């Protein structure tokens, strides 16, 4: 699925110099490529040291208080996350974070919704997760042993006007909705909104915007868990 040339993107990724579509492709690739992870880890520090090569005037003094005020306002978002986690989940999250950082993915998450990104990363970076290839499309479903799942799919046409792709978890003849996505990008990485138990399947159909509770479209692609 991945072309050899993707390994060559590591230096540019370390320098934040990839074009957006390459960046998405590379980040998905990192999850599966030990060689790139190691190479990237080796470039991080020399790249960051370039920051020390710049002469600088002092930032305006009010910037400090502005940052601290904003941080204080956000504190309610920071403390509870940590305290709320049961210990076991906290440990799992720490392991996932370790791996995510090893993947070099934390830099990417700066610019996106952190919570969404974090849970996606935790799944993609989980070393115990199973990676099941899709049937009918290019990509895979990654499922952790707790059933948390993420879909990585590339090359899908954008959903038609007024339509959306909808994910389903199929189990015992039942189809349960598990989220929607629009495939506006070359590669989509989507977190499933419900767990995917062993013996179930993941199915994607095209539905009306907003999704439905019962599938009406034909399966576009599937994965058997």
């Amino acid at each position: 699925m991945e072309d050899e040339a993707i390994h060559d993107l590591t230096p540019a990724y370390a320098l934040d110099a990839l074009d957006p579509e390459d960046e998405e492709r590379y980040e998905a690739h990192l999850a599966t490529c030990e060689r790139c992870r190691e190479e990237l880890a080796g470039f991080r520090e020399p790249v960051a040291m370039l920051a020390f090569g710049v002469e600088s005037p002092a930032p305006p003094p009010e910037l400090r208080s502005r940052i601290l005020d904003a941080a204080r306002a956000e504190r309610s978002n920071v403390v509870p996350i940590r305290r709320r986690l049961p210990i076991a989940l906290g440990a799992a999250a720490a392991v996932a974070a370790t791996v995510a950082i090893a993947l070099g993915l934390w830099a990417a998450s700066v610019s996106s919704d952190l919570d969404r990104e974090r849970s996606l990363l935790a799944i993609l970076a989980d070393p115990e997760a199973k990676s099941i290839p899709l049937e009918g499309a290019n990509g895979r479903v990654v499922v952790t042993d707790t059933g948390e799942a993420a879909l990585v799919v590339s090359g899908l046409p954008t959903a038609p006007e007024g339509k959306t792709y909808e994910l389903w978890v199929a189990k015992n003849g039942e189809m349960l909705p598990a989220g929607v996505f629009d495939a506006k990008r070359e590669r989509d990485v989507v977190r499933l909104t419900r767990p995917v138990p062993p013996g179930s399947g993941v199915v994607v159909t095209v539905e009306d915007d907003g999704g439905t509770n019962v599938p009406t479209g034909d399966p576009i692609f599937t994965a058997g868990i």
Partner: protein
Amino acid sequence: MTATVTLLPWVVLAPPRSRHVPPDVAHPSDEALIARAAEGDETALAALYDRYALVAYGLALRVLRDAALAEDAVQEAFLAVWRSAHRYIPERSKPSTWILTFVHRRAVDLVRHEERRRADPLTDVEAVLGGMVDEDAWRRLERERVQTALRKLPDHQRESIELAYYGGFTQSELAERLGQPLGTIKSRMFTGLERLRELLTEPDHDGEGWKTKRSTT
């Protein structure tokens, strides 16, 4: 500007001593500060800011060439540090690497979002930056060390790395700008970063660099 900023930033911006900080952690490591930030201790974030604001702002300004945007980038980066502190793993990266990666990322995001046309970072830098502050000796030495390492790269490698990192250009923008095949740009970045790693993060590899550093103290 020059007249008003000729003070050590650490002194000007020194945080008020917090009653939350017991005396035995009055000079905590960066790692300890990040751990405290993860617990929601904003005095730890303030201390990290005081240590890295100057280099962070300098980097953001270099990439963005606009004081207001540079402030935005620094603010967003430190807030990202605040939000992500619980995910920091000391074994994986140095605190400075971790923090400055956020700063660079935000600066590059902003420069592309603004679609500002960036001037050539190889020239005219002084004019943009204006007056310099008096730096502490460590900061000056560190800067000289990085600049010396960059100067040791072959011109083409240095050009690609500087335009990418300081200029915020993507590799395909670079290929177009420099009139080179994309593969050439990639290989210049790769070879250049390999060499920089030797020069900057494996000091024993390059005894001369350390001699130079010592002789300037």
